[in-house]
């Protein structure tokens, strides 16, 4: 399998970069705050205050509760940067709305970058004989446990309901793990005293190969400026296509089988690798992968082959 695991590169480089950004931002805000304090301090004399600051009813400034030099504090500045400045708090209803918002624009761009990396599609001229499936943006905010918004996620999806059986898709069934099987794996792991690990792919379905010829419209808001009337021919599956889960499962399972795993006897989503006494178990649940081994080095080996 040739899953493009570019995210690792991101992982290696990003922490440093983002640290730098954070550090410089903090400095920047500190300076800004210092400036504010200095300016305010120079305004302590009532005569220096702007006209609007003077009370129209002749109340003396001594009656003001709190330190007037601090100005109006709405919220903690550092929290403000974390929560509001880098994440949008709204979920846009339409593309037009999303395009207005910088954060959402970045999120959409990020999704399209994944397409570039995975070589999902190619631009071809429109032909009347092609059945073209529409595309649509889906906007979701990711929440953490306390219900705070941590991430804006934009994803382009195909309108799978327009697909016709026999033309755009054939088989769609993909096996899914039973919850009991997962409980059993957890129980087995704690009995044998080994730890389980988790892996995920931001856009798993974009890795599945497509056998049929499927054509989709250009994503709304991101049309090619040279050929706005062209359409995309898919090489990989898109979210929303009926065959997407199946082709992803096929790709993942063939990859695992090539790497010396065997499929579980009845559970088709369990993959096992045995080495002497040790055993490596990989359970897949659509795009989530959990794995664990009695020997920690097998886990590390697996993580590295999955990451390319």
């Amino acid at each position, binding site marked *: 399998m040739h*899953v493009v*695991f570019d*995210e690792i590169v991101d992982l290696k480089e990003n922490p440093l970069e983002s640290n730098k950004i954070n550090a410089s931002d903090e400095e920047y805000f500190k300076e800004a705050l210092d400036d504010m304090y200095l300016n305010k301090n120079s305004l302590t004399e009532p005569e220096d205050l702007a006209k609007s600051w003077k009370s129209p009813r002749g109340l003396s400034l001594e009656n003001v509760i709190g330190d007037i030099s601090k100005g109006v504090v709405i919220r903690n500045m550092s929290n403000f940067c974390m929560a509001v400045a880098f994440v949008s708090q709204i979920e846009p209803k339409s593309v037009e709305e999303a395009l207005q918002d910088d954060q959402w624009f970045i999120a959409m761009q990020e999704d399209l970058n994944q397409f570039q990396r995975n070589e999902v599609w190619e631009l071809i001229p429109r032909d009347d004989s092609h059945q073209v499936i529409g595309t649509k943006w889906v906007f979701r905010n990711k929440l953490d446990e306390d219900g705070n918004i941590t991430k804006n996620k934009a994803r382009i999806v195909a309108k799978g309901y327009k697909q016709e059986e026999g033309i755009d898709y054939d088989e769609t069934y993909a096996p899914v793990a039973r919850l009991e099987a997962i409980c059993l794996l957890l129980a087995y792991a704690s*009995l044998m005293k080994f730890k389980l690990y988790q*892996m*995920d792919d*931001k856009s798993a379905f974009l890795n599945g190969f497509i056998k049929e010829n499927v054509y989709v419209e250009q994503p709304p808001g991101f049309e090619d400026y040279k050929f706005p009337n062209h359409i995309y021919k898919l090489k990989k599956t898109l979210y929303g296509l009926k065959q997407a889960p199946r082709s992803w499962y096929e790709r993942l399972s063939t990859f695992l089988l090539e790497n010396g795993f065997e499929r579980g006897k009845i559970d088709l989503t369990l993959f096992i690798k045995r080495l002497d006494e040790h*055993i490596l178990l990989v359970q897949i649940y659509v795009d*989530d992968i959990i794995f*664990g081994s009695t020997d920690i080095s097998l886990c590390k080996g697996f993580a590295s082959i999955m990451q390319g």
Partner: protein
Amino acid sequence: MSMMGELTFFLGLQIKQMENGTFISQTKYCKEVLKKFRMGTAKEASTPDIMQFVCVCVCARFQVNPKESHLTAVKRILKYLKGIAYFGLWYPSGASPSLIGYSDADNGGCKIDRKSTSGTCHLLGSLLVSWHSKKQACVALSTIEAEYIVAGNCCAQILWMKQQLEDYNIFLNHIPLKCDNTSAINLTKNPIMHSRTKHIEIRHHFLRDHINKGNCEIEYIDTKHQLVYIFTKPLAKDRFYELRRDLAILEIS
């Protein structure tokens, strides 16, 4: 593909892997449910209305035509959920991997169509890995029949788990299946065909076949040690708590 580290959150299950075991809870999901129905500030209830785990299932049967009484019952369940939001399954490490199945039925539990409720649970070592509590698909004429049907279901689940465990290099045979009805146990040994049992359908005799093959072994258990009552019968508060504790459903400390 990116590595996310240790398994902590999967399909709504919050998983804590510790040195001496694993703790699985659904606190987050529980809170979301309470928030959705604006029950976040409600008082906590110590037990669900009828003290058994089937209450959700019973309420769900009235979804077509719900009445006010059902609303109160559901609210009671939500209040109970609030009380046990931090409860979860505790999987201690290091127990021996042996499988036990428990089965029980209440005869004619449903007051409307007189079908029985079957309950089973399966413990690997002492860890609760699978359970079910469900109204049976057919009307049973006697307790034996009801128990016999559940034991059959329980056996099917045992067979699945047996095969699954073979993938994990655990090979088990003669898996004990605990049943508290001696007549049902005897029926698995000899196909006595008298007026009360002769009509039992062939598919339920599937259990006999697997006992003969030695895949599982049916054993008697007295009512004191029967864990599965929590899934089938309304219980007194103390007994309810006791069984809940025996199934290793605990609050994280």
